């Protein structure tokens, strides 16, 4: 193994003398990760939804005894979408052009029906066709759900007013008609003044029971309106931008790029320098040459991967983000980085062995990085074949290893399983690389 060590020393020295390459190797995956983050952010951005008002919504609407400021209410309930007021024709045109993803129409008579409180008014929605339609529909449904929740309180309060009237009596109004009712309290008083017969006593018992039952109406109405209520608990753990998933993918992407490109370029570089012939004379057999490149990938992946991990850990400490174990798991992470880097280095070595020159090898390696990473990002339940292919490459196993290493309470099972995968894949690809190293050609 001495020959591998000597070649590795040479490679590390060479790498140290090309700082520009080192900077590019680190900066490129970070840039890609940032761009992916932006794309993911765009995917989560609020969709634009047109609001077509055919009813001429007033500035304020009174429902029950609640007054709603229309503009403020719309702003409050449209947290997940950006509502833009458009005319009917313009909305249809923009929907067809894809500038908006849905049209929510307030039909004529909407406010009147709402205020009558005898039947549900309707809103019409037209959703764009295509891949995002499901998500858009959910967003619009969420908007109507939030609006219903607000109106629900007004409806319940209005209904409770009638219940209070039944209980205590007084003047009321329904569908524009005024009336006066004696109420159960008044009925009780009248019954108390009557001669106490068995019939009167039966009515008194009914009034007593009815008063008790109606006193519970408020809770019963709320329970009927929302059989299950969702209570959001205070959040614990990492903020989304520093989640275990994000950190694991950032590490995975960075060292996949580094290890693949470095190992591929370094092995093909031996041919470019015309040194393969010298080494092939028994000085460095092809297996040891591949081993040196794999070790190079493992070392560089460990050093730069730890740099990324330290940066995350520093952000966590400085930003006082709760959760996670940013420091204590770093030694285990270092081992995981070395193993993943080496396995990816074996893949890179295979690329370098198959390519005729370093430039081709590096280009092919760069082109391979994104498919490998994206295959690892596709959930197996979405596309099973992607999961099988991804299982045959080190990236996904590396990401799962990092995730377990950094944040699982009991990581050893996952670490052992993924490490075994990485060792197996590393051995397989290094054997392939060894057999693919082409003979020197004068």
């Amino acid at each position, binding site marked *: 193994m001495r020959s591998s060590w000597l070649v590795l020393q*040479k490679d590390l020295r060479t790498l140290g003398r090309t700082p520009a390459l080192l900077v590019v190797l680190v900066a490129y995956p970070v840039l890609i990760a940032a761009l992916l983050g932006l794309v993911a952010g765009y995917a989560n951005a609020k969709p634009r939804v047109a609001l077509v008002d055919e009813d001429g919504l007033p500035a304020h609407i009174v429902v029950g005894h609640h007054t709603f400021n229309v503009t403020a209410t719309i702003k409050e309930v449209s947290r997940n979408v950006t509502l833009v007021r458009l005319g009917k024709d313009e909305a249809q045109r923009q929907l067809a052009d894809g500038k908006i993803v849905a049209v929510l129409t307030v039909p004529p008579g909407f406010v009147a029906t709402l205020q009558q409180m005898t039947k549900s008014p309707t809103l019409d929605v037209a959703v764009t066709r295509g891949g995002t339609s499901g998500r858009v529909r959910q967003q619009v449904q969420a908007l109507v759900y939030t609006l219903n929740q607000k109106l629900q309180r007004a409806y319940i309060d209005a209904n409770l007013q009638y219940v209070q009237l039944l209980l205590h009596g007084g003047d009321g109004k329904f569908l524009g008609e005024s009336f006066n009712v004696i109420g159960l309290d008044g009925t009780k008083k009248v019954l108390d003044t009557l001669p106490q017969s068995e019939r009167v006593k039966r009515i008194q018992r009914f009034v007593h029971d009815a008063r008790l039952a109606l006193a519970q109406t408020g809770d019963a109405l709320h329970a009927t309106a929302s059989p299950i209520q969702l209570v959001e608990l205070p959040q614990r753990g990492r903020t989304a931008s520093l989640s275990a998933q994000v950190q694991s993918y950032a590490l995975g992407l960075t060292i996949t790029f580094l290890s693949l490109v470095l190992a591929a370029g370094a092995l093909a570089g031996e041919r470019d320098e015309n040194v393969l012939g*010298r*080494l092939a004379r028994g000085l460095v057999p092809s297996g040891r040459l591949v081993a040196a490149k794999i070790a190079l990938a493992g070392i560089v992946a460990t050093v730069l991967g730890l740099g990324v991990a330290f940066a995350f850990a520093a952000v966590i400490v400085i930003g006082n983000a709760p959760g996670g174990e940013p420091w204590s798991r770093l030694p285990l992470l270092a081992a995981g980085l070395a193993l993943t880097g080496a396995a990816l280095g074996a893949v890179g070595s295979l690329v370098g062995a198959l390519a005729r020159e370093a430039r081709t090898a590096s280009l092919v390696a760069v082109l391979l990085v994104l498919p490998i990473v994206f295959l690892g990002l596709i959930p197996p339940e979405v596309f099973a074949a992607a999961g099988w292919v991804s299982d045959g490459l080190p990236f996904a196993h590396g990401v799962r290893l990092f995730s377990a290493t950094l944040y699982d309470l009991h990581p050893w099972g996952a670490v052992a399983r993924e490490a075994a995968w990485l060792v197996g894949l590393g051995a397989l690809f290094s054997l392939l690389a060894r057999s693919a190293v082409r003979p020197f050609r004068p």
Partner: protein
Amino acid sequence: MSLLDARGVARSFGSRVALEPTDVSLAAGEVVALVGPNGAGKSTLLAILAGSLEPTEGTVERPKRVGWVPQRAAHYGRLTALENLRLFAALEGVPAARAAELAAEFDLPPDTRASSLSVGNRQRLDVALSLLASPQVLLLDEPTSSLDPAQRERVWRIARDVAAGGGAVLVATHHWEELAGLADRTLELVEGRLA
């Protein structure tokens, strides 16, 4: 006494035959010239004799210490000449002092990266690399094509010294006239076949 024996060595690259079955023998104390036009198979034959290239058929018996100067520069461009010499000395199991000795003997700039050296200096570095293990057989593939007359004379002196020390030298060249006073015999290779 024969130091190197190649019996029926041949080499093909895909469907292209670079070298027909060839016998070559180098005796102790002799300098042999290998001449022939471009593409005749000279470099292929030397690479096979040096052990860099496996023949598709035939066998080669060679001593442990064989020096080889390939036609194209074969060293690491991002290392200095001295670092190249030290690395290959370590790989050959030769003391590092021998590397420094050769760097001084060939006047190689110690701190300049090999990629920044002139073509002539890079060729001298390759010659120096071939001498690291004090070879019994020295195989030189167009070793003087980029050298000035003084440096050429230095290479021929080295060849004479190796032969005089009981070694053998095989020199592939287009310039047979340069070897007229040096070569003990000449082999001519034409279209992969010894004439």
